[in-house]
């Protein structure tokens, strides 16, 4: 390990209207290390990295690269300094091809006229994807891919920059186990070749398997930096949230009641087989599967977002009109979508409007929204979910990623649903908030709600579910009762290696 750090950030201060995001934060990165940056949602991790990436300018503080003070005026300047950035929120040109996104802003050129060298671009892109083991067509339009695939493209892009400093802001949020493993192998080899890597994640297992040092932020302050063997997971959590968290998956024992939801022979447009399952009151049913297994598609059909090709969805014994999300919501079946940016956030609108959206009709008197009732509702959820926002009129766009997720969750909880479908509900959510959501799920089932939990984090599904359904290529391939939960067997069913009686 070289004596002098590659990057030194000293006393970085940055505030936004109503929020002091960073109040004098230090960070030191050394060549060849994977450095974890931890903290609750809104702690300031992304802001600190955006400053290093040239997106924001600090109000005070100093940045040194190789010991020399620098001003990083723009993302382009950061790239010139050898800093590559994988952003938390996918920010890509969806109309362009995968290859063009990987080479965005620096297409290879050839000849005296500096024509774009398409062959070289496709070759380079294929190579970059290959390195990650991602089977993605470099010529495909990016907009047609799922979040996971897009995440891989973003990573491939950053890798192909051959940077000396690589910032990874929750790169695995949309990835599943196998992909994460491949990514880690790449990250380790990069570190071995001397690249300094900042790794932000809310998944502690990842931190412990990948990182050498860790810096914890809380409320815009640096709590401390440690080498990873100096701290235990529980200590890290305590540093982040400022208190001890007891149980990771607080499973509440509820005796399931009568059948709440029944899905009969549901067939989706395009592909897959007929799917049948049911959910009872007070039950949490986990839905596991690999990326692209069709869990999201199935849930969208159940919730009436898409019209299924056939089959029926019955809630409390009565069929729901197919493809009618409004009717489903009115009857108490709601879906909290997985892609909060595209499917959840009303960009540019306030926290209040975002939160109350799905239950406005019940806030009306004489057709007019009762402003007082709306404010009350919003404030209740802001405090119950611990949403960090200066006030309820703040534009959601300005909230940290995790807090945006909580606003969307709040929108659906506010409708007092009977059956709640959570599609990757804890993606990008900090440990404290996760615990909060888990606790909430327990409370909700105790009140007789049924929950379908779609999650790519197997420990989470196993920790919380009463029953786990496994999907593979659009079909249910296995069902496990809580007593039978076993990581190995679930993975087998998910990869289609072994069929299990449904």
């Amino acid at each position, binding site marked *: 390990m070289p004596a002098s750090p590659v990057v030194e950030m000293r006393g970085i201060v940055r505030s936004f209207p109503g929020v002091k995001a960073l109040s004098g934060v230090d960070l030191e990165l050394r060549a060849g290390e994977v450095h974890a940056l931890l903290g609750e949602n809104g702690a300031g991790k992304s802001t600190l990295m955006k400053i290093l990436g040239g997106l924001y300018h600090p109000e005070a503080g100093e940045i040194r690269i190789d010991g020399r003070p620098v001003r990083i005026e723009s993302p382009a300047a950061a790239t010139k300094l050898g800093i590559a950035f994988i952003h938390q929120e996918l920010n890509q040109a969806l109309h362009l091809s995968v290859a063009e996104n990987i080479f965005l802003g620096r297409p290879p050129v050839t000849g005296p006229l500096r024509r774009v060298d398409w062959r070289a671009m496709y070759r380079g892109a294929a190579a970059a994807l290959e390195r990650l083991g991602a089977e993605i067509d470099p010529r495909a339009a990016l907009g047609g891919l799922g979040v996971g695939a897009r995440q891989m493209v973003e990573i491939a892009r950053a890798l192909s920059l051959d940077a000396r400093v690589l910032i990874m802001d929750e790169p695995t949020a949309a990835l599943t186990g196998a992909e994460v493993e491949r990514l880690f192998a790449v990250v380790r080899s990069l570190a071995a070749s001397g690249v300094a890597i900042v790794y932000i994640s809310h998944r502690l297992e990842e931190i412990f398997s990948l990182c050498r040092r860790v810096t914890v932020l809380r409320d815009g302050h640096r709590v401390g930096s440690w080498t990873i063997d100096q701290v235990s997971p529980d200590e890290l959590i305590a540093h982040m949230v400022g208190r001890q968290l007891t149980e990771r998956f607080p499973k509440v024992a509820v005796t399931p009641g009568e059948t709440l939801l029944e899905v009969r022979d549901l067939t989706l447009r395009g592909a897959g087989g007929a799917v049948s399952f049911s959910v009872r009151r007070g039950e949490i049913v986990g839905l596991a599967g690999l990326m692209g297994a069709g869990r999201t598609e199935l849930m969208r059909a159940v919730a*009436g977002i898409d019209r299924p090709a056939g089959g029926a969805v019955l809630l409390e014994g009565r069929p729901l009109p197919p493809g009618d999300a*409004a009717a489903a919501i009115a009857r108490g079946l709601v879906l909290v979508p997985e892609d909060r940016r595209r499917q959840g956030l009303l960009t540019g609108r306030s926290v209040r409007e975002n939160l109350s959206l799905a239950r406005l009709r019940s806030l009306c008197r004489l057709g007019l929204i009762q402003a007082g009732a709306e404010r009350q509702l919003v404030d209740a959820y802001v405090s119950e979910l611990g949403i960090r926002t200066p006030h309820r009129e703040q534009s959601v766009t300005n909230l940290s990623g995790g807090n945006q997720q909580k606003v969307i969750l709040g*929108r659906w909880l506010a409708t007092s649903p009977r059956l709640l479908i959570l599609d990757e509900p804890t993606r990008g959510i900090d440990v404290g908030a996760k615990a909060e959501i888990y606790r909430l799920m327990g409370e909700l089932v105790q009140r007789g709600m049924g929950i379908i939990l779609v999650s790519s984090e197997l420990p989470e599904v196993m920790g919380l579910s009463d029953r786990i359904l496994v999907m593979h290529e659009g079909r249910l391939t296995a069902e496990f009762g809580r007593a039978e939960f076993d990581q190995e067997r679930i993975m087998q069913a998910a990869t289609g290696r072994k069929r299990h009686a449904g």
Partner: protein
Amino acid sequence: MQARVQIKDRVRQMGPGLAVIIMGLALALLSRDFLTVSNLLNLLRQVSINAIIACGMTLVILTGGIDLSVGSVLALSSAVLAGLASGGTPWPLALLAALALGAALGLFNGVVITRGRIAPFVATLATMAIARGLTLVYTGGRPITGLPGALRWPGTGYLGPVPAPIIIMVAVFALVYLMLAHTPVGRFIYAVGSNEEAARFAGIPAARVTALTYVLTGLASALAGVILTGRLNSAQPTAGAAFELDAIAAVVLGGTSLAGGQGGVLGTAVGALIIGILDNGLNLLGVSSFYQQVAQGAVILLAVLMDRRR
């Protein structure tokens, strides 16, 4: 703290208002005639037609759409109003028919856009051509005259000292403001404009909400047509040409984003005022007609730039 932010928001909303005030002061200094009650009423009456259309246009633009057909819809509604009324149809029926026609043309736009998935620009451009063609066919290229007196009221009447077009305009703005700020449908309009997919996930019938904004804009255009018919005491086949540009300019000057999801009708009212004051003021000052257009362009730029600076 919340109060501070809210006030700041209000100030931003009132941004272009500054332009109005500055223009008003300048004109008051330059022309004795500007700041008289009679001229102000005159000004508001002139503004009313564009303002009413722009009010509807605001809704469409809030969903991220645009409506180029407003001028043609106005002309066709006006022609049918005058044609029916001068042909002996009782005026309330003629009025109803004209308004229904406007709404129907708006519905046509809305359906083509939502069901046919055609870009609003193209769909309403087509409607613009079709409605204009039908107007010419219906009128034979000649004005229609011979209106019953009752139909002159919306254009030339008074309620007390206040001209009827002003009353109608204020009523339209009040209703639309109420709808946008205080009803679910209003919120849905913002939601669809901000993120249509998210709106659909929240069970909002995005297509119907979008179509509704076009229906209301068609209705507003027809209503503006009724006022114009009264004012001109006739229906003109060429009425409303290029009105879409003025209406869109009013909306955008008023701070509503063409990308949708952001803005409101109060801003639009101010935007329409800016345009009206410019016309009126330059006329009062007797600025040479050639320079008038230069001045209009420059003032629009300045007004918006000023808005950006704060």
